[in-house]
């Protein structure tokens, strides 16, 4: 009896937990996609100590 009662509650909670889990998983995927798009929209970035190939060859011209 006790096991069955507990089992029933677990079954009910399962739907709720599954829903929350799937929602969170979807949120994570969305944030990842959004981050990729946002970073790409920034274009090429260059830090002060990074020198690209073309710039490196300039002084030798």
């Amino acid at each position, binding site marked *: 009896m006790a096991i069955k*009662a507990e089992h029933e509650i677990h079954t009910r909670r399962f739907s709720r937990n599954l*829903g929350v889990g799937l929602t969170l998983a979807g949120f994570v995927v969305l944030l990842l996609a*959004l981050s990729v798009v946002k970073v790409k929209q920034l274009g090429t970035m260059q830090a002060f100590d990074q020198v690209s190939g073309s710039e490196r060859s300039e002084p030798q011209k």
Partner: protein
Amino acid sequence: MSDTNATDMEYEAGFGDYFALLKPRVMSLVIFTALVGLLVAPVAVHPVVALSSILFIGIGAGASGALNMWWDADIDAVMKRTAKRPVPSGRVTAQDALAIGVALSGMAVVMLALAANLLAAGLLAFTIFFYAVIYTMWLKRWTPQNIVIGGAAGAFPPVIGWAVATGSVSIESLLMFALIFMWTPPHFWALALFMRADYDTAGVPMLTVTHGRRVTRNHVLIYTLLLVPVAIGLGLTSIGGPAYLAVSVVMNALFLKGAFAIWRRDETQAEADNYRTERQVFRLSLYYLFLHFSALLVDATLRGFGLEIW
């Protein structure tokens, strides 16, 4: 038996019960109008940014719905239309509704700021505040003009969608706001005319309760007359086009005809056919808004293909 009682009292709210707190039907209208506002804007938005922004606007609107259900559980319980909502029916506690409403509001605003821009996020925050505090907590139980001013909350989504794309507010987005804003009163008063018992028992000061049904019928006609120039005017801006103007002329003619019919009737006639005209106009008002916004999308698509006619 004690076992049965224990199970009844500790009912585990399912995922669907919490989802119902977000008023999915209202949310779908918010998502639709916000999406139209975003798509008709003259600035292209990356699909992922657009999808995320619309999702966060929808979640923000849903969160304000949850806050509304937390605050209004007492009146929802006595109205037939709302008695089955999660809080009054006992499936979700009022505290849970409050927690979900506050948490999702904050999350939606912050995420919209990150996905789009601060203006769009600020507008969303203001919309949630307006619906949950100004409308639900203050105006709804205080003035029969509750519907008129509360309608502003439902009118914001296309402005937010437009702000996501352009980062600004313009005459086009303000007219989309005005269209929903002016549409809400005749839409809700037509509903209030045939759902009379509900608002009476709940003590919500609907116009039908405070000023009588004759005055409400006059108001439906006046607000519909004021709605027409706004609807047609939107068609003359940069986002209007042949599809919009064609739909607008037809739908406004039908809506005016319906409002006029409501105005001409009295209660005896309405009770005789069980509010047939009022129900028809209410249904028509739903199509009215949906078709206006769909037509904006059609015109935007035509412009996208270079088929600009003017």
